[in-house]
């Protein structure tokens, strides 16, 4: 392995400053970074360890919402009683992610920085062409093994899937990333590949995720995360949906609806077309199924991942109907 320097940051400001230097990267749980370093995808000169910074692992929940420190562990947040009761989709997305061992290591902020599992991206010695790693070098995935690649939000430059679960729930409920003072919605935080797939997050040099804020809403309180996959645990989603719903006083008419998709797109995918089609409607299975098809409007497959286009709307519909049943 390449030699690198290791620094232990003493404050948030010191961490930001150190991480702004060329070749420097922040290290939190390390579950993605160490993995990618082993693959030869990331080659940091300096690792700035922020795991000892105090005050960044708090989980605060009140009527207005939740503020979760960037260093809170995924496992802790998943098990937090107020997160479970007020943001069930967030808790469910977390405990269905990765494995128990990884959830106990990985942090919330680090999770947002998780990178794609595209096998071509992760294998630089065998597949030099990857626009995400090396802008302009081409895309090895197109024409290759694509069962796990995205069908939404792709470009000619990149079809790599966003693999995570947490951010799918976050984007559904308009969560906001705190980059120190600056605030960016999770939806805007994740960037579409377009012609610059190497740029994945709206985070600037010298910035650091300090917290994630989720507004408290009725839709978040009645929410769920449904994840479909071949294996029961420790597998990325074939398709997943974070859904939240608020009914009018009649208990049938949809006042507010939140729908986001995972396992199908190049970023956590908010399905506003489904939301718009169903808001104000009475929740009926046929209506929901028809509207759910809008979730994959514009989807493009690359052969082996075609099934995701079939699967995703069914997952969305099931999640919405399941929440309706508990009315």
């Amino acid at each position, binding site marked *: *392995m*390449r*030699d690198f320097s290791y620094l232990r940051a003493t404050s948030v400001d010191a961490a930001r400053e150190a991480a702004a230097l060329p070749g420097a990267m922040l290290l939190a749980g390390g579950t993605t970074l160490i993995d990618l370093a082993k693959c*030869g995808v990331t080659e940091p000169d300096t690792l700035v360890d922020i795991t000892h910074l105090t005050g960044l692992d708090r989980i605060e929940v009140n009527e207005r919402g939740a503020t979760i420190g960037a260093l809170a562990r995924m496992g802790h947040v998943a098990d937090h009683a107020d997160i479970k009761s007020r943001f069930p989709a967030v808790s469910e997305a977390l405990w269905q992610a990765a494995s128990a061992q990884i959830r106990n290591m990985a942090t919330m902020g680090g999770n947002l920085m998780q990178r794609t*599992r595209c*096998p*071509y991206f992760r*294998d630089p*010695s*065998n*597949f030099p062409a990857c626009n995400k790693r090396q802008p302009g070098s081409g895309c090895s995935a197109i*024409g*290759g*093994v694509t*069962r796990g690649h995205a069908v939404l939000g792709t470009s000619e430059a990149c079809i790599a899937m966003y693999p995570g679960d947490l951010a799918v729930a976050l984007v559904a409920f308009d969560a906001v990333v705190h980059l120190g003072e600056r605030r960016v919605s999770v939806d805007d935080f994740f960037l579409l590949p377009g012609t610059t797939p190497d740029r994945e997050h709206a985070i600037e040099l010298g910035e650091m995720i300090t917290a994630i804020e989720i507004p408290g809403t009725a839709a978040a309180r009645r929410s769920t995360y449904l994840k*479909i*996959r*071949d*294996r*029961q*645990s*420790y*597998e990325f989603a*074939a398709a997943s949906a974070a859904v939240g719903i608020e009914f009018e006083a009649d208990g049938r008419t949809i006042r507010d609806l939140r729908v986001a998709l995972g396992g199908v797109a190049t970023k956590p995918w908010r399905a506003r077309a489904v939301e718009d089609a169903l808001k104000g409607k009475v929740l009926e299975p046929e209506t929901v199924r028809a509207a759910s098809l809008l979730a994959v409007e514009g989807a493009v497959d690359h052969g082996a991942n*075609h*099934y995701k286009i*079939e*699967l995703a709307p*069914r*997952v969305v*519909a*099931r999640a919405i109907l399941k929440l309706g049943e508990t009315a």
Partner: protein
Amino acid sequence: MTLELSLNQQPAHARQGSSIGQPLTRRDGFLKVTGAARYAADNHPPGMLHAVLAVSSITRGRVASLDIEAAKAHAGVVEVMTPRNRPALAADPDAKDHPFMFRLDLLQNDQVRYPNQTIAVVIAETLEAATEGAALLSPRYEALPARVGLDDAESFVPRGVGVGGPAVQHKGDIEAGLKSARTRIEATYETPAQYHNAMEPHAIVAAWDGDRLSIDTPSQGLAMAQGRIAGLFGIAPQNIHIRSPFLGGGFGSKGMISGPQVLGILAARLVGRPVKLVLRREQMYGPVGHRAPTRQTLRMGMDGEGRLTAIHHHAKTASSTFDDFFEPAADASHTLYASPAITTSHEAVRLDTGTPLFMRAPGEATGSIALESAIDEAAHACGMDPLEFRLRNHAEVEPMTGKPFSSKALRECYSQAAKAFGWASRPLQPRLMRDADGFLTGWGMGTATFPAIMFQAEARAVLKADGSGLMETGAQDMGQGAWTAFAQIAADGLGLDIEQVDFRAGSSDLPNAGIAGGSGHTATAGMAIHNAGAAVIARLADLATGNEASPLFGAGNEGVLARGGRLYRRDDESRSESYAEILARAGLTEIEGHGKGAPDPASQETYAKHAHGAVFAEVKVDPDFGQIRVTRLVGAFAAGRVINPRLVRSQYYGGMIWGVSFALHEEAITDRRSGRIQNANLAEYHVPVNADVPSVEALLVHEDDPYVNALGIKGVGEIGITGTAGAVANAVWHATGVRPRRFPIRIEDLLV
């Protein structure tokens, strides 16, 4: 080494009971859960260097250049071994003197014949320096197109399949049988390439002292490894000491010494210091064997009563371009179902992969999933319950040879497992059962079978002056429980409590215990152990019954029995004498005895010897998502005498879970353009997690077999995969009405 001592120091509560048939907990369990068990890579002799393989990123072609200077300039790098400076070998690694000798890639030239083939070895003071040195080699290649699929190369009929069986075998007239049939089915099934993925990667720590070689490495066959290394280096086998007390799984991939292990020895020779070499996970996808892909077509005919009139099982498979191992998948149809006409045939292609090798139930596992699926299709075509159909076609003699079975409690397996599972209430038609949550529910079954094989083994027993015993054989514990089961047999053979026996294994300086493979280790080494014990007891009995001072005088050899460290007169158990007393009177400090284990050629000619079983599976399938979950597995197995029911159940559980893995999870996914495997890691090469196997039950069906060997042991290591994989596939059909023809079965196969 203190290992044996530690094994005997367990708390008494873990040693309840003693010998054959007792459910002892693993004698090595405490060492393993406390981290005290030392695996090969845990050894660090003084002055040890680290070696890291540089492996080919192309699939076929040649290495044009390596930046050796850059690697050697990196701090800590001691040497870079390439074809130019690799120490000379006494034998050509591409020579093949016998079918069990596999060609190795030992840097003999610049050719690349598969991905992840070693192209150089970097040796350094630290693992980190060696790793970076390997990266700095920046190889350049001249690449040729990769041939990676079953249709990518010209097909041929191999000269032999498996361990040399005929590629094509006939009994009766298959076409006539099909023609006369009332009902016929024909179906093609595909199984993917699979990799062993033992938790412990292949590792070696090698140290030379002149022409003497000391090795720590996991091995399923110590004497074979010793012989192979001796041949390659031109030294006497007895100059090589291999220690392999524990394997972190083998599954066939550690049966023969692999190329990377030999490269570790070469590296140590090159630098003149001890060297440790451990494969990275992705480096296990190439040089250490795999299960080859298959495409199998089954044609069956049935008469009006559902009796098979013909079975044709054809399998296409693949080997490497440079060696021969052909997965004998179609041979699965030799032993299970009665039919007047049976043809099994194989064809193969040569692909740019590492050579496929033995992988847990080689041929049996791949063949079973296709055969059991086809049997299910045939039963349905006849309108019969799958169990009734199997009973209708139950083989009273081995179908292909006409030999009687040495024992066959398959009917009991069927009935016990079916009853425990609740099979009787199964509707005949698919897609009729739903659970309370709306999941499609399906029940399927499969028949399990695996041959009862024996190899050659030896053991040495010593009875000491204090009446305690020592038993030595170079047996291999790869997690199956050899440390425990063999100690039980040793205690039984010596007529001692297990605490009184010092059992030693896992080292090449002990008698040759044969190979831990083919489900034959317990039978083979177990017989050697038992015979060695018997030899000691016979001498002891001679001493006692021939001495007037002994209370056993005149009883004759047959007139005494050994138990708990004493000899008793058979006709008067009040007359007995301790082993220690007999030795003391004879003025001996110890008695030594030797024993062998081997198949009996006469009974081999006369009888067909197989273990059998029946597996029933319940799956639930989400009707919208095609998401499959196995909710229940019940298996019943008859495999002769059970030495330790706790260990045997574990073997069945492991096999059955592997069956689930075969049906639903495992697949090496290859990029067809480059020939590279895209999921060469444990995150994406899937095996079941605990949540995928919520309920697994294994019933042990009593079976006495007087013909397999004196102990009546058949073997349990591999049978669990067979039957189970097909049972899961058949349950998926029963749940959904969709017949799986490609494995593993995936969500998209069931999205309708």
